[in-house]
């Protein structure tokens, strides 16, 4: 598409990425609404669940454009859904009849739909296009790392060397299944751990003796051996914490049966509720490559696509129901993706061929609900009879990283490799993000502020009761910089002296924990 069209179709919803350097820091620190730092602590608890729809999901039959129904019935007669069965969610859009559970979530304000997501020059090969979505590359660019792998690399530098450790006891990402997704590939290793079931994983791994190492030569066979040993080692190191997390929590909702996606999400809910500190989970459901028999010959509301969307819809709804009952629904956002959408016109086999743009779904209590973008035009098509793109999928990725994880512009640039205008998908102001509320009346006093690295620093705080005090500094990415024990402090007003962390100039959050009290302040290092 032309750059001009791109701007035209997206401009109302573009929000420029928050530029940290563009604001006076002092002003920012006072304005919580603008303050991305305010989210830092909670962002370390935040989890993203990626739901891959393998095969290329037919977006037009997923979110049906009600404003173009006559064209819709004309161009895709074999697969078009009857108007009377459509699940209306707005004046102009309706969901596939199999998606009643997602319709319910939409009405509850837990669904954001981003319309017309693709990338320029969509590649119609499943493999190549899947790689592009996984790596967040341009259509003609070949990357060997995944977008999420690159982001996690900023939080877990040098992974896997030196992990697990006290600050990062759990795998950065967990994939339910046995094939590791390229999206999780970091610069040195995959940031993900794949498993099918926590108990079996633990039972088998537990018997391995890894003490037999031996030097590894710098040869081809040596490199393969080193890889095998690394997988073996990481599996052993993480198997216990994963089992412990899984054992700690029980699912509280009823999940649908005969639904592989539900089976996977069930495990994810338990792991999150059980306290596993992984930041990303990846689950998948296949079969969306509906060249033929996408619909039943007698009833287009039935057939392969209906079955798949029904499974997706019921599994996601059960998952969020479970998260709510487990009390962790505000910590989780889930997002669907698929390598491409499908052709506007249906084919003669009651199916649809590979296409381009399609909607993405983002689920959770923290999403800005509703439909982002407009219905795709079924008449203004590209040369191959495919939909025009409204949003680049990397805008969605960038938005999630910035708004959900609080990634700063530098990190975004490093991960996404260029600037993509973000779309407001996730709530970012304090009014919409539940913070752990400090029980102490006063905030944490810090002086002097700003301070030079390593210089003495006074902390002033009030405790409701005597308690052991611990102080942590995090950087803007939520990474722990230092942690120190202050010792036992009495109830009432306290003043203690520590040293500012040895970091390059920047903004840190300082968190003080004492019993049930949690106090927080912002420190600027000169």
């Amino acid at each position, binding site marked *: 598409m032309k750059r001009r069209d791109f701007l035209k179709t997206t401009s109302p919803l573009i929000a420029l990425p928050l530029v940290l350097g563009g604001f006076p820091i002092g002003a920012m620190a006072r304005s919580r609404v603008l303050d991305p730092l305010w989210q830092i602590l909670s962002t370390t608890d935040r989890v993203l669940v990626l739901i891959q729809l393998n095969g290329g999901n037919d977006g037009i039959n997923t979110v049906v454009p009600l404003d173009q129904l006559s064209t819709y019935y004309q161009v895709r007669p074999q697969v078009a859904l009857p108007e009377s069965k459509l699940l209306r969610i707005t004046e102009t859009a309706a969901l596939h009849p199999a998606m009643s559970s997602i319709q319910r979530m939409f009405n509850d304000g837990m669904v954001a739909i981003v319309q017309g997501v693709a990338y320029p*020059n969509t*590649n*119609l*090969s*499943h*493999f*190549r296009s899947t790689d592009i979505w996984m790596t967040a590359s341009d*259509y*003609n660019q*070949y990357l*060997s790392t995944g977008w999420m792998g690159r982001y996690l690399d900023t939080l877990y530098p040098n992974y896997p060397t030196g992990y697990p450790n006290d600050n990062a006891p759990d795998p950065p990402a967990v994939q339910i*299944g*046995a*094939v*590791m997704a*390229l999206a999780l*590939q970091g610069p040195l290793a*995959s940031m993900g*751990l*794949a*498993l*099918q079931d926590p108990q*079996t*994983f633990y039972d*088998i*791994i537990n*018997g*391995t*003796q890894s*003490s*037999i190492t*031996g*030097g590894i030569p710098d*040869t*081809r*066979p040596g490199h*393969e*051996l080193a*890889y*095998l*040993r690394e*997988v*073996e080692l*990481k*599996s052993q190191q*993480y198997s216990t914490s994963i089992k412990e997390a899984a054992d700690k929590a029980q699912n509280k909702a009823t999940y649908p049966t005969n639904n592989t996606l539900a089976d996977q999400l069930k495990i994810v809910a338990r792991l999150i509720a059980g306290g596993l500190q992984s930041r990303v989970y990846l689950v998948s459901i296949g079969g969306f490559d509906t*060249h*033929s028999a996408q619909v039943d010959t007698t009833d287009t509301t039935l057939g392969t696509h209906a079955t798949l969307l029904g499974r997706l819809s019921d599994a996601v709804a059960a998952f969020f129901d479970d998260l709510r009952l487990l009390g962790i629904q505000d910590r989780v956002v889930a997002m669907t993706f698929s390598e491409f959408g499908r052709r506007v016109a249906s*084919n*003669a*086999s009651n199916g649809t*061929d590979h296409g381009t743009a399609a909607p993405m779904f983002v689920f959770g209590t923290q999403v800005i609900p509703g439909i982002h973008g407009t219905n795709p035009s079924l008449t203004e098509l590209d*040369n*191959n009879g495919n939909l025009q793109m409204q949003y680049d999928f990397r805008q969605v990725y960038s938005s999630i990283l910035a708004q959900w994880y609080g990634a700063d512009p530098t990190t975004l640039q490093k991960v996404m490799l260029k600037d993509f205008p973000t779309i407001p998908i996730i709530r970012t102001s304090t009014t919409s993000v539940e913070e752990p509320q400090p029980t102490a009346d006063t905030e944490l006093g810090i002086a002097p502020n700003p301070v030079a690295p390593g210089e003495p620093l006074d902390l002033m705080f009030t405790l409701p009761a005597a308690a052991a005090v611990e102080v942590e500094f995090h950087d803007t990415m939520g990474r722990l910089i230092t942690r120190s024990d202050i010792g036992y402090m009495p109830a009432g007003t306290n003043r203690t002296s520590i040293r500012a962390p040895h970091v390059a100039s920047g903004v840190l959050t300082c968190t003080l924990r004492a019993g049930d009290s949690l106090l927080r302040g912002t420190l600027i290092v000169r």
Partner: protein
Amino acid sequence: MGALDRYTGPWDERHAGHLLRRTTFLSARRFVRQLMDVGLDAAVEQLLADQPTPDPPVDPATGQTWVNNTTPQQNDAQYRLMVKAWWLEQMFRTDRLSIIEKMTLLWHNYFATEADTIGDSRLQYHHNAMLRRYALGNLKELTFRVTIDPGMLRYLNGDLNTAQKPNENYARELQELFTIGKGPERAPGDYTHYTEHDVQQAARVLTGWRVLRNGDPSTSVFNANLHDRGDKQFSAAYGNRVIRGRTGSTAGADELTELLDMIFSQEETARFFVRKLYRWFVFYHIDERTESEIIEPLAQLLRQSDYQIKPVLSVLLKSAHFYDDQNIGAMIKSPLDFIVMTMTTAGFPLPTNAQDKARLLNALLAIAAALQQNPMDPPSVAGWPAYYQTPDYYRLWINSATLPTRYALTDTILFGSRQLPRSYILDVLAFAERTSNNPGDYAQLIADLEQELMPAYPLTDEQRDYLARSVLMAGGQVYEWAQIWATYKANPTDPSARGAAQQRLQNLLRTMFRMAEFQLM
């Protein structure tokens, strides 16, 4: 010396074993010796010899094969599993050493189809029979057969491709995955070697082929009325070639022949195939030197021999490069390599009783699927990512989910589990005696087990020492092993004497099966 010159180094167990592992699903020493004894040239010749077609699978309910029935089976899903089991059984064959099963799997990975999508066990069988019939023949002829094969027509919707409603699915994969391959995308829809326009034109050439639900399941039929009779004009990537539209009953085959002539006259087609062959038999990484010294000369040879496959295989499998130390042990066993090599090395014969055999093969197929290589149901038309996904390739077989599953299989053959029938518990005492001339000597025993189980990647002395002290003798004195073994030999039926030796051997084997070296070939 050129990398493709004949290998002139020692023809010993290391090199004969490398040839065996890369061309068959076997690794045990008794087969290595067969190849070693006849010498390199005769070994390669033997492996490349044509093989008679195996008997088709039999329906246990009737004692007859169903694969030639003119109507589909009721409850076809169970028959699809029988075809898979039949193929796995071929991989298990030890009565002849042949490359045929690895080649058939190569073609299955190359011209990938999914039994679940084909949805007819008869077509699934005949597709495999066709692949093995042409497996060591001519690439162009094989591509022709694949294109009009009923299973492939159904899998990639070729049977829905008509003049009125063209379906591009097969035409796209034919060029992207099966012949010339995608080059850099120079402009939208222009993949250097072909364009989107060429996909559409090829789809027109391929119109008219049908798969009849009732009838001979081994062939498709051509319906001239459904064929696009217009001329097909290809892009500059193919020299603006025009394939003249034809009518009549031979129109489809004639135009297809012309289409394949056009594609196979492009130099890139031979290169594309040779790269796949290299990744299948040698190593995944192809650097510039490999490209110029191996891929290019083999691609030339392939063209000179008019796409006959055997001459290329023969040169590659006898080449100095193939036996380079960098390539021996550099391949991670695929799940099927792992399963069949482990089971045949353990020495388990397939049961003769049909029911027991089916139970075992089905159990192993389930394990193969859990290990991410479900034969006849690869993940997509591109085959298994281990053979195309950069940068990890073979490493993709191994992750934190599949590695424990591999351990579970080797644990099962040592200790038993619900995964396999109980008769597949290894008699470790007999195994030690089969494997070693002097099992009472701990160093000799460990050296012989190493040679049998992990010959592709030698252990260090430190590792061997660890296996003796910390595993076999669990921290006890190593010289006591001779006594334990002698006591067992003197009283082979005494439970405590037997148990003492057996338990130590089980521990030793369990650890060796879990060593990373065991995964390499």
